[in-house]
C-alpha cells in the first residue's frame, strides 16, 4: 500500500480516537477537559430541525432558534452548573453514553485544518427508569495545534423535530 493511503488512514485513526476520547470525557462529566479540546474561538451550534415542505427547504439559518449556539465563554458558563453543587436535579448523576460511528475526515480549506463528520447515538438513563435516546450527525472543523487536534467548529444535527427528551443536560 502506498504512503498516501497510509497517511489518510493514520489521520482517520487520529480523528476517530479524538472523538472516542471526547465521548469518554463527556460521559464522565469531565467538562473542563472537554473544553480543553477546543480552540479559543470555537463555535458550537445545534440548530432545531424544522418540518418544511421540500419546496420551502433552505440552508439551516443561524438567525433562527436553536438548542445550542455557543462560544467557549458560554460553554464555560453552562458547564459551570455542575460545579455549583446546587444543581439538585443532577443528583444522583445521569448515566450518559455517547456511541460514535461513521467517522470521515478530509483536508480542510486552510492547511492544518480538517473537515470531519460522524454520527452519534446518545443514550441517557437516570433514576429508576428515565431514558432518553438521541441520534444524529456532527459536521466538524478540526484544527491541528502544536501537533494536537482541536475542535474549531461543530454543527450538530439532531434527528428530531420536537425534542423527545425532558432536557438537554448533555452535549453531542
Amino acid at each position, binding site marked *: 500500500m502506498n504512503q498516501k493511503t497510509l497517511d489518510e488512514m493514520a489521520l482517520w485513526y487520529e480523528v476517530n480516537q479524538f472523538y472516542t476520547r471526547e465521548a469518554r470525557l463527556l460521559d464522565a462529566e469531565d467538562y473542563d477537559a472537554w473544553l480543553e479540546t477546543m480552540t479559543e474561538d470555537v463555535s458550537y451550534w445545534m440548530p432545531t430541525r424544522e418540518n418544511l415542505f421540500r419546496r420551502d427547504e433552505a440552508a439551516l439559518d443561524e438567525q433562527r432558534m436553536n438548542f445550542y449556539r455557543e462560544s467557549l465563554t458560554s460553554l464555560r*458558563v453552562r458547564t459551570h452548573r455542575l460545579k455549583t453543587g446546587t444543581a439538585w436535579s443532577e443528583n444522583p448523576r445521569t448515566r450518559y453514553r455517547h456511541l460514535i460511528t461513521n467517522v470521515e475526515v478530509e483536508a480542510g480549506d486552510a492547511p492544518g485544518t480538517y473537515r470531519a463528520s460522524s454520527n452519534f447515538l446518545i443514550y441517557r438513563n437516570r433514576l429508576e427508569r428515565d431514558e432518553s435516546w438521541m441520534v444524529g450527525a456532527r459536521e466538524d472543523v478540526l484544527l491541528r495545534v502544536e501537533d494536537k487536534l482541536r475542535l474549531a467548529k461543530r454543527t450538530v444535527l439532531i434527528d428530531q423535530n420536537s425534542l423527545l427528551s425532558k432536557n438537554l443536560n448533555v452535549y453531542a
Partner: protein
Amino acid sequence: MDLSELINVKEGWIDRRLFWDQGIYELELERLFARSWLFVGHESQIPKPGDFLTTYMGQDNVVVSRHKDGSVRVFLNSCVHRGNRICFADRGNTRSFVCNYHGWAYGTDGSLQGMHEDSHYEGWIDKSQWGLKNARVSSYKGLLFACFDSDAPSLDDFLGDYRWYLDIVLDQCDEGTEFIGGCVKNMFDANWKFGAENFAGDSLHVGWTHNSGTQSITYGKQVGEVMPVDPQSFHANANGHCWEGGLDGIGSIALLSSDRPCIMEYYQARREKMAKRLGELRAKRIFGSVISATVFPNFSFLPGIATMRAWLPKGPTRIELRAWTIINKDMPDDVREAVRDACMLSFAPAGLFEMDDGENWENATRSNEGVITRRGRLHYGLRNGTSRRDDPDLPGNISRPMYSDVNQLAFYQRWLDFMTASSWADIPKSR
C-alpha cells in the same frame, strides 16, 4: 368525583388528582381548552398572504394561516373526507392545502375548493358545507389567540385588566414586537398545569431550584442578589391570568445581559421612550425586574428574559413545550442575537433554568399518582386570601409581596370556574 372538592381556595389546598387523572384531563379538553382563547402564534410569524404555521389548540392540530385578504384564519388540520391531516409542515407559504389521500384542496381560509377527479363529485357534495372548521381569531398587539367557542366573550374581555400587564411586553415602541424565527419544542412527562402555575406565581422556587443556574450565568451571584426580597413585589391576577414579580426594574435584564452588555444598553437607552408609552411605573420599575406570567390557561412568558411558551397538553401526564423568543422590532441585529442566545441559555431544553424545572414537574406528576399519596392534600396556603382589588397603582387582584400562593390559587379558581360550568353562561366573565 365532585370537582369542587378538588380545590379549596379558602383553606388553601389542592387535591393531587388534578395532576394525573385521565377523567379530569378529558374534561379539561372539553370544558377548558375547547372554550378558552388560546395562544396560537405571533403575527410576525405569518406576515405575507399564504404564510402559515401549524400548532395545537388543546389536542387539536390547527393551521394558522394568512389568508389572501390579509386576515388571519385558524382552522382544523384534518380533512373532512377521511380525516387525514392536510398540512404536515411546521410553517411555510402556500396557495392551498391539498390532502395527500384523495387530493381534496382547501383554501388559505380552510374552505373546500375542490378535489382530484372532482367531476365525479358534481351533485354529490355542497362544498360550502364541508370546509375546515374555523376558530374565532383575535390579535392582541401582535399576539394571536383563537377560540372554538362561539359563546366565549371577546379576547379583550377575556384578558380584561390583564392587558395592562401584557402591554409592558407588547407595547414598548411604535414598531411593536416580533418573534425570532423558529420555535424550540420538547416533550416531557408532566401535567401541563405544573408549567402554567409555576409561571403564574412561583417566585419561591427560583432561589432554590435555580440557584445553580443563577450562579453559573452571573459568575457566582446568589438569586437573592438578582432578585432581592422586596416587600413591594407583588402577585397580580385578573380573570385567572397571572403576573408576579418585583419592582427593581433591573433583575431579569441583568441576568440576560451577563456576558452580553448590549442588551442592557439597549433597554436602558429606551427607558424614557418606554415611559412615554407605559408610564414610569411600568417602564422603569416593573419592566426589567424578575417577573413570570401566565395567560390562562396555558400560555406563559417572562418579561425581560423574552421567552414566551405554550404548555401543550398531550395527555394527563405529558406536555409538549413550545418556546419562542419575543423581541422589539426596533432592536439592532446584535441585540436580537444576544437576546436569542441569552434566552436559549436560560430557558430552553438545554437552558440552565429550564432543565431543573422539568425534572421537578415530572417527578411531582409521577409521585402524586400513588394510591396513598393521592389521599393527601398539597399545600397552597401561603398568603391565601390577602389579595385586594383596589390597589391604587396596579389593576387586577393584588397581593404583596410576591412570595405567596395567591396567583396559583387564582389560577385554580379560574380552572374550577371552567370545569364546573356547563357553558360560558355559567362562567363569571371577570375574576
